[in-house]
């Protein structure tokens, strides 16, 4: 599995992580080595025939018992980097 610098740039863009030029080559090699190692699952899975992932079942509870509005607002918003009143503040996107 060969990973190229442009793959690293693409992944960093998808993950919204700025990566310096000097780090790109290090990441490229690390990803290549790790992917080469973990690729053994492909062979194992192939030997197993047509394997199925585990059974799925619903783990969600009913949407009920809501708390009173506003009781956590200040605790949570006090952690925001920027706010306007009871709203998070971000740069305009349009």
């Amino acid at each position: 599995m060969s990973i190229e610098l442009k793959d690293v740039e693409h992944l960093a863009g998808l993950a919204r992580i700025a990566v310096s030029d000097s780090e790109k080559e290090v990441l490229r090699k690390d990803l290549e080595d790790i992917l080469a190692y973990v690729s053994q699952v492909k062979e194992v899975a192939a030997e197993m025939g047509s394997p199925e992932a585990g059974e799925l079942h619903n783990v969600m509870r009913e949407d009920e018992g809501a708390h009173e509005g506003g009781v956590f607002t200040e605790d949570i918003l006090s952690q925001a980097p920027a706010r306007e009143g009871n709203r998070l503040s971000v740069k305009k996107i349009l």
Partner: protein
Amino acid sequence: MDIKNLTIKEAHEMLISKKMSVLELAEAVLKVAEDTRDLNAYLEIFDDVRAQAEVAQKMIDEGRATMMTGIPVAMKDNILIKGRIVSASSKMLENYRATYDAGVTKKLREAGAIFVGRTNMDEFAMGGSTETSAFGVTKNPHDLTRVPGGSSGGSAAALAANAALGALGTDTGGSIRQPASFCGVVGLKPTYGSVSRSGLMAMASSLDQAGPFAKTVEDAEIIFDCIKGHDPMDSTSYPDDMARKDFGKPRVIGVPTEFVHAKGVDPRVLKNFEESLEAMKKEGYEVKEISLPTLAHGLSVYYILMPAEVSSNLARLDGVRYGYHADGANLLEDYMKSRGEGFGREVRRRILLGTYVLSSGYYDAYYGRARAVQEKLKQDLALAFKDVDIIATPTAPTPAFKIGEKSSDPLAMYLADIFTVPVNIAGVPAISIPCGIVEEEGSKLPLGIQFIAPHFGESVLFAAGKDFEKTQKSNII
């Protein structure tokens, strides 16, 4: 007061019989914690320990004490305590204050335990040495040039240095058991779903589990009994009645010999492991060789599933709602810079790896196949447990390594998890217990043995663990 070798059990008896006050115990622990600051085990020692001690003393005086009342514990820095900074040892959350208590925090608080402080860890629990912490490495109390293991290295080191009587960590691929092994203490990774994950910072949600560090198996059991149980705030928490299966007394130990003799395992570790098995035979256990070839694929499965979950779990850290914020020219640049600067190198690497294995065109080849092999591993393990009561392996392939030795080679670091990772992949419980030492360059380095049990089989681990401890009396460090 000398708190070296003081167990939770003994401390409890002294507190109840009024031979010692909670404040005396807390002061003794605080003094050790201050005296061992150079280990960098604690990121913060809380300023309200004495006030907490008063609350606990009142519980004892009023006859409301539990086994954990007045017991000073260390908390890994990814477990929420309302109002306290909880940073996951990341620049991203350096100043973040928890807005609620974790499930395990609530249980310990209600039991009257005392939170001494928050302990250093690998950033967002990603690492096996605490070297990825944004706040410096923790040193191993047995040799200051070596790592304490990780990711819960601070908790293990604090306990080993007697700067707490017990500690909590989290274990996604070995992050409790491996540092327990490196620091010479007991570490338990409970059955997935038996201890609430509410209020633990998620790394890989399908694998994460909180658990105790303790000086003895009995102490680990005391902490586990306090923190276990169903929590409606965690949708993967099991109903209590599912955990009530009676396993009886363990008698047969299975050893996956081929797997244990994998490449890269220190011959001294193997020799010690054989001796440990012999000791268990003398205690009346039958040791049986078993073949579990899928165990060897655990690490590959892990390094696909874990980064996949990491990449989605850590997407919430965007520099907008909480945590580190770096300003760019527009919102996209805000995201890119906040995440690029806030996350350390190992975290960035795993997010990119996870993004890769989940991306269109590769999802089936990696994530899909890894999930399939995970199912196979679970089935093979369930089959093995028809013949044996527990499975034994060394906890780690080597004793504690030198600070810096593996930090530039991620794959070498990942291989240190080879024996612990399959346990998380299968969701079963496992315990690491000190099993002797090796001498290297004048230092006495602890080793650990790992016992693995079927789902909800913690009682089997405690029974076998206590028997094993009896064989180790001459080996106590």
